[in-house]
């Protein structure tokens, strides 16, 4: 008979227990009656017949019990009994529950919170059809390897069309380009973030619209009507969730577009923390298919089924090798295939791993605390179990009872933990979005997956805890337990071992967390006080985007006089504002932008690599910046030699550039850089000045080579403006905004904040990790302190009699109390040594998660293994241990030997 059938029978029986009981009763009675009838028939007196029937049948209750066992329904009865008993016990010793339930809830809840963040950011499948087959293709040389930081090196249209024409590894290849669209639907013009998408974009991603349709082939064409697909967020937030949104016209860049579809929420997480609001079709004409100038394309592709991304990479390598062979002068670079999930997750898993380790330790500390309390209680209940065993209770029955008990309080803790996790998630969500490395955080919520996780953790904990009291029960010596009651002087060695193990492990976990917290906090504070190399005081920064519709499309190497005039006008207008000392314009804002690297070729020297091919390796490359003449003065950067940009550096003059000292050191060592010609970004330029190094990427990196061009020689599509004020820059904000609106009312002023805040924001990952780990460390330390206290005071309670005897024999009370403190100290020292060793091992991991690798790091940071942090943390915990054992030790001083020996 199948297991299924049997389970079904069992379930049916369990569901109608009372009926089963009743039927059993009826059946046995009818058996007895029939027997009695037969006996009477045979001539036995009714009285005697009934007696004999009873005897022959055997014990009615025993038979019933055996029958229940035969059907396996006995366990239900037992569990419901235990459940009632467990609840009664909890009610009786409510203080036990009051301590264990919140402690466990904290541990489980913290773990669940991190789990739900990891689930949203990493484990949840991407909102695409078969996301495993999706890849990004970046233009460049080199290879992506799993575990690498993801690359962001955009492509040019010609590369896209070249791949499309030649490769066979992909089902289809498409691309998108970020664009800022001027939305003039409402009264005020707003700039929204959109994507210009090439054909087959939605086919590659394979996500359907939740209303209307996605883009289709007929939308792409020179004369196709203007259509757009909008995001769910745009529909609900900007268009008021208009039910008649399909077919509605919106004005984008002053042209009317028809909305044809709304994408589902969460589509699509293009990069960490950045969601597009609308998609417009981009039709490429023949000329564009050979465009090798316009960067900024982000290609996406779906792999042919059965093709791995590594195979696709091999094919792209072959294609580029052939290209180089056939057209040595061609400018088409190779492609780097990066799986979509790896691209989106990047290295964020490291931060989550660190948090998971920290929270895991907190969880263990919480568990050890509870385990210790359970153990102590088991000793108190030893007699109860002994009596039950002596009365014939089977071991399984007692184990079942213990399990029911631990389930009861674990369940309470688990339910509380869901609340803790929900609150913790809210806190994390408030902190983490500033750390732009975690993708898809908007989907963090209390969901089924998280409940399952919490539930299984709870179950695991209760299973483990039900075995703790079993350690205490000496099965074969139940009579000893009964006999010995009141005569045991102190706990046996093995039992003390276990408690000592608890103390040591609490010490280890909390010490490791404390050291991590101290390391991260110290590194952070130190970094915060690092000087960036320029004067950030009174600097106000904001961004102005020149909408394409008014100021033309940006193409590399080509400039638009409209944009140029705009920037000049802005510079002039702002410098006239009273209180503004100088105005800097730059394409990139320090500490806010990615490394914009280009290979460097020094004229008159053999090229180390083909300079026309962009290379992502930082070895041979320099950062590139476009700035106005006032830039260095505004930032207070010193000139080392040569000159700053001047008014005569117009685009007609030959390209001139200023480099920093790092550039000079790296590419022109032991030479005078002034007047040298270098090729950067495919253009020749002459160095006219050298400025002092200052930090431009992040505070914890040493300055890298940078080359600065005059902004006028190439006008970027948007600029960052930095104004140096005489006093607090924030006060100037509104005036500056008004001035910009005077220049052009359609120019949005974005992300206005003081430079100090920009710097602070660039440290947010470090701040958040230091805060979170610190918080976890504090919680763990508090729990550990409480745990050590409870172990020590319990130990004193157990050794009361022994100590009473010692005192009675004339031992100094102080010495006896010293025994307690001494034990705490001894355990503390063992724990400190172990904890320091573990912290030394994972301290490296922790700091490298948050800070960059040591090769790139400046000498200031990070302090992965500062001995001071270790010693201070260990000493702190030792003091805590002594403090925690002080109160129990004081109790020793009050022991009255007579009472101690007599009581119980």
């Amino acid at each position: 008979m199948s297991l299924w059938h049997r389970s079904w029978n069992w379930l049916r029986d369990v569901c109608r227990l009372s009926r089963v009981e009743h039927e059993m009763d009826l059946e046995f009675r009818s058996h007895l009656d029939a027997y009695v009838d037969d006996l009477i028939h045979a001539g036995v007196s009714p009285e005697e017949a009934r007696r004999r029937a009873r005897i022959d049948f055997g014990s009615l209750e025993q038979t019933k019990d055996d029958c229940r066992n035969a059907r396996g329904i006995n366990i239900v009865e037992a569990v419901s009994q235990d459940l009632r008993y467990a609840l009664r016990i909890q009610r009786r010793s409510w203080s036990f529950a009051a301590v264990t339930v919140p402690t466990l809830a904290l541990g489980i809840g913290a773990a669940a919170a991190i789990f739900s963040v990891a689930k949203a950011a990493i484990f949840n499948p991407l909102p695409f059809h078969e996301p495993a087959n999706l890849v990004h293709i970046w233009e460049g040389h080199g290879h992506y390897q799993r575990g690498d930081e993801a690359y962001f090196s955009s492509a040019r249209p010609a590369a896209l069309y070249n791949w499309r024409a030649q490769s066979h590894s992909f089902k289809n290849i498409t691309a998108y380009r970020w664009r800022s669209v001027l939305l003039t639907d409402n009264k005020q013009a707003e700039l929204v973030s959109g994507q210009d998408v090439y054909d087959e974009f939605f086919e590659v991603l394979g996500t359907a619209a939740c209303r209307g349709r996605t883009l289709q082939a007929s939308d792409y064409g020179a004369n196709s009507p203007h259509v757009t697909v909008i995001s769910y967020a745009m529909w609900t937030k900007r268009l008021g969730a208009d039910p008649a949104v399909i077919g509605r016209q919106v004005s984008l860049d002053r042209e009317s577009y028809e909305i044809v579809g709304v994408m589902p929420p969460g589509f699509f997480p293009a990069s960490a923390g950045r969601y597009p609001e609308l998609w417009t079709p981009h039709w490429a004409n023949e000329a564009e298919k050979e465009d090798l100038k316009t960067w900024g394309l982000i290609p996406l592709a779906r792999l042919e089924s059965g093709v791995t991304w590594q195979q696709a990479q091999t094919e792209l390598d072959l294609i580029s090798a052939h290209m180089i062979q056939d057209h040595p002068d061609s400018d088409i670079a190779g492609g780097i295939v990066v799986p979509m999930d790896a691209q989106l997750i990047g290295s964020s898993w490291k931060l989550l791993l660190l948090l998971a380790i920290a929270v895991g330790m907190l969880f263990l500390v919480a568990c050890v605390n509870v385990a210790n309390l359970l153990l102590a209680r088991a000793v108190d209940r030893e007699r109860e179990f002994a009596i039950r065993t002596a009365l014939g209770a089977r071991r399984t029955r007692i184990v079942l009872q213990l399990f029911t008990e631990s389930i009861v309080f674990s369940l309470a803790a688990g339910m509380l933990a869901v609340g803790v996790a929900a609150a913790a998630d809210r806190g994390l969500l408030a902190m983490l979005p500033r750390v732009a490395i975690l993708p898809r955080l908007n989907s963090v919520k209390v969901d089924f997956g998280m409940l399952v996780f919490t539930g299984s953790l709870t179950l695991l904990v209760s299973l483990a805890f039900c075995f703790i009291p079993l350690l205490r029960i000496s099965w074969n010596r139940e009579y000893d337990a009964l006999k010995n009651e009141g005569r045991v002087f102190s706990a046996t060695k093995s039992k003390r071992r276990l408690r000592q193990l608890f103390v040591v492990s609490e010490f280890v976990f909390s010490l490791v967390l404390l050291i991590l917290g101290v390391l991260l906090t110290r590194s952070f504070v130190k970094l915060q006080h690092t000087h960036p190399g320029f004067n950030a005081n009174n600097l106000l920064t904001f961004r102005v985007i020149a909408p394409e519709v008014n100021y033309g499309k940006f193409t590399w190497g080509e400039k638009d006089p409209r944009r140029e005039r705009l920037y000049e006008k802005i510079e002039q207008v702002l410098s006239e504002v009273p209180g503004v000392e100088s105005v800097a314009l730059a394409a990139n804002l320090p500490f806010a932008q990615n490394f914009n690297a280009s290979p460097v070729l020094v004229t008159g020297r053999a090229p180390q690599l083909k300079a026309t091919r962009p290379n992502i390796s930082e070895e041979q490359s320099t950062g590139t910046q476009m700035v106005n003449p006032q830039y260095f003065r505004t930032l207070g950067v010193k000139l080392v030699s040569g000159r700053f940009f001047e008014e005569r550096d117009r685009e007609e003059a030959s390209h001139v550039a200023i480099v920093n000292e790092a550039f000079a050191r790296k590419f022109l060592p032991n030479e005078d850089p002034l007047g040298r010609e270098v090729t950067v970004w495919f253009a020749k330029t002459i160095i006219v000045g050298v400025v002092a190094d200052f930090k431009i990427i992040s505070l914890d990196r040493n300055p890298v080579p940078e080359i600065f061009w005059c902004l006028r020689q190439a006008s970027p599509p948007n600029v960052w403006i930095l104004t140096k004020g005489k006093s607090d820059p924030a006060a100037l904000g509104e005036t500056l905004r008004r001035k910009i609106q005077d220049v052009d009312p359609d120019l949005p002023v974005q992300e206005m904040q003081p430079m100090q805040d920009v710097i602070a924001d660039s440290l947010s990952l470090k701040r958040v990790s230091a805060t979170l780990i610190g918080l976890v460390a504090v919680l763990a330390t508090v729990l550990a302190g409480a745990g050590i206290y409870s172990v020590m005071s319990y130990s004193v309670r157990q050794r009361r009699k022994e100590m009473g005897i010692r005192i009675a024999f004339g031992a100094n009370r102080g010495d006896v109390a010293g025994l307690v403190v001494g034990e705490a100290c001894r355990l503390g020292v063992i724990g400190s040594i172990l904890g320091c060793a573990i912290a030394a091992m994972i301290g490296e991991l922790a700091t490298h998660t948050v800070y960059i690798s040591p090769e790139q790091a400046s000498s200031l940071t990070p302090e992965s293994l500062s001995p001071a942090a270790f010693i201070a943390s260990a000493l702190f915990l030792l003091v805590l241990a002594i403090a925690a054992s002080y109160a129990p030790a004081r109790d020793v001083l009050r022991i009255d030997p007579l009472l101690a020996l007599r009581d119980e």
Partner: protein
Amino acid sequence: MKNQLDLLQGTLDMLILKAVSLGPLHGYGILLRIQQISKDRLEIPRGSLYPALYRLEHQGWISSEWGESDNKRKAKYYHLTAAGGCKFHNETEKWSQMADVIEGILRTRPEEV
């Protein structure tokens, strides 16, 4: 009563299956039937019949329904299920093989070894 045999371990199930294979019976009836077939030479241990019945029913070899006994009493009648029939057949087969083997062994004379 002295010449009654103790039931061999594990054979009660088989006897019950045999008893009900001859027609639906209630618990007391099964007891009587076994005694009758064995000509009172077997004794079913006290209190072991019902647990065995419940187990067999739980495993699906037999099933039960309420009916009326000869003397107008409500009684639970057990009958063999199709699966139980197969099981009984197999068990019988196995038993006779086993009995053969054991008998062969026990009857072996010294010179045959």
